[in-house]
């Protein structure tokens, strides 16, 4: 288990908060739009997990690669996914990133390095290795990040991927967002080891267990992993501890969780804590942070309007993009 000595400066912390504000507002808007029936889609809320991608993304460039999962819209917005195309996509419109064909579980935006979003548990990891291999082959220094959940650490693809990444010293970060539940299953019922980060040892890999709700600690973990990857020193497994506030998928009320347990975690919501901390530290003013929040709402107003005003794909789209044309 490695510790880190990287601390973000004040400006970086404020930028992390700005991204968190956008993520939080986007989640709230999504749930609102769905619950009022304006959009129909399976929605996997990431509310409560905003620190992780905010702290990761300020350590990445647009060229770095991200492979994420159904619960990954926070990862992608932090990485630069434009809100208008995001919303058009989840509304199934032709102006969406994927012309409406992919939807929330398959958002893709290579311009910002967002290469694949998968709906299959564990499947982000093998693909991230390939992106890392490409970086290694070309020597372009890009880092590939695979995000996944705690439940995914029990599936075969996790094992094969970490093993290969380590033996090939690939510039890959395996970022486990441990929200302590995989669908309705509590961590301990499925996972016989106290910390997922400890599994890194089985691959001779660096493993970091970090409080994913602590922006400073999470920044340090991400920074260390990114530096290791860029230096050609191989992959890192980060286990970032966190909690999801709103059930596995929209409509799930977490009935399988102990109420007090859940309440305790929701009370530890990292967003207001980080907000207050930034003001207390003098890193930012209330006005500045409120400005981010207003700006986020304004961007979302625009994105939702754009999405709902965009046309649905025509039926000629149904069977196109299945195969390409030979060069």
């Amino acid at each position, binding site marked *: 288990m490695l510790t880190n000595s990287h601390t973000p400066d004040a400006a970086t912390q404020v930028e992390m908060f700005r991204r968190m504000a956008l993520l939080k507002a986007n989640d709230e808007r999504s749930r609102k739009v769905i619950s009022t029936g304006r959009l129909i889609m399976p929605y996997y809320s990431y509310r409560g997990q905003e620190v992780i991608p905010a702290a990761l993304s300020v350590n990445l460039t647009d060229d770095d690669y991200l492979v994420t999962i159904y619960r990954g819209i926070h990862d992608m917005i932090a990485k630069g996914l434009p809100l208008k195309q995001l919303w058009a996509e989840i509304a*199934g419109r032709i102006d969406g990133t994927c012309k409406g064909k*992919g939807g929330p579980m398959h958002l893709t935006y290579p311009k910002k390095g967002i290469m694949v979003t998968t709906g*299959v548990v564990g499947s982000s990891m093998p693909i991230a290795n390939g992106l890392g291999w490409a970086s290694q082959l070309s020597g372009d220094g890009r880092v590939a990040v695979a995000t996944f959940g705690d439940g995914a650490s029990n599936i075969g693809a996790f094992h094969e991927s970490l093993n290969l990444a380590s033996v090939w010293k690939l510039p890959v970060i395996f970022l486990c967002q441990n929200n302590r539940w995989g669908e309705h299953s509590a961590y301990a019922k499925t996972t016989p080891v106290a910390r997922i980060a400890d599994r890194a040892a089985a691959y001779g890999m660096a493993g970091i267990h970090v409080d994913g709700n602590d922006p400073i600690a999470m920044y340090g973990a991400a920074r260390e992993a990114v530096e290791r990857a860029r230096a050609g020193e191989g992959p890192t497994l980060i286990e970032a501890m966190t909690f999801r506030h709103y059930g596995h998928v929209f409509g799930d009320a977490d009935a399988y969780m102990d109420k007090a347990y859940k309440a305790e975690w929701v009370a530890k919501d990292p967003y207001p804590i980080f907000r207050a901390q930034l003001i207390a530290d003098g890193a930012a003013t209330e006005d500045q942070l409120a400005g981010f929040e207003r700006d986020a709402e304004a961007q979302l107003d625009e994105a939702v309007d754009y999405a709902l005003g965009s046309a649905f794909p025509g039926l000629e789209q149904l*069977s196109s993009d299945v195969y390409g044309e030979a060069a």
Partner: protein
Amino acid sequence: MSDAMVAEKPAEKTAKPVTILQALNQALADAMAEDDKIVVLGEDVADPEEGGVTGVTKGLSTRFGETRVRSTPISEQAIIGCAIGASLAGYKPVAEIMLMNFTTVAMDMIVNHAAKLRYMSGGQTNVPIVIRTMTGAGFSTGGQHADFLEAWFAHTAGIKVVIPSNSADAYGLMRSAIDDPDPVLFVENMPNYWTPYPAFDAGHRVPIGKANVVVGGSDITIVSYARMMNECQMALAALGEAGVSAEIIDLRTIAPWDQETVLASVAKTGRLLVVHEAVVPFGVGAEIAAVVQEKLFGKLKAPVARVGAPFNPVPFSKPLETAHVPSAAKIADAAIALVQGNH
């Protein structure tokens, strides 16, 4: 399959309708109550995890205990392997692979092992497991959550494949699948779990390998299964208006499919349309067409036609998703064209 054991009982029409979800839940409960060798495993199947993401296994662990109804880690290879091993030791596991697309991570266990152990052991062992899995477009779940892959398994010697379209068949096929001495892939349709269908007698069996002539007719035979049966029946109005008398057959079992019933019907009508939600090329319709054109050569009034999904992944966007799945209108058009000779 001995007739005595699995004689089909007609569904009881008078009682309160039941959903497919309820029928499956009851089938599992009834079977477990009768035979303590029946065990259930899969992700979130026990009651502390809400008895399955859609509730098919709800109440079972409370009633039969968490040793017999066990939630697993997200490990599909381990789930099927565990079912196989337990079956070799005399248990009858019902394993859930949440969605049919996730069978892709367990194909080695299903195809190379469950399906083949009886043969490769020269009959010394057998693998009486049921693999439940759900699928179906309609819930905007996109490209990795709604595929129909039944043709893959039907192409695999050693496993059977059943797909019910209503509650009585869901119950009766589940009971037969559990009784069966070989692995059975049991495909459930997510989008009509909650549709009420006529009730049935507890304990009844629907024999594996036996299709059901749901509607009699004389001009054309329409063979379908699963949720597409609803669309076929909805097509009857348009067919009637066009003066077309259609015989509709619910295949119910894909492997081994009921050639006798299908051939008898097509011998009578002279025309066949096969309808399924899977993509057309290399789908179940191809095999049915191949057999029928051979066995009834020279006796068909029109070529065997197929209606299915176009050859693309399931799209997310609602209008595309809707267009992807065969509809009553498309089915009626195809059937009318066949009868009117516009093929």
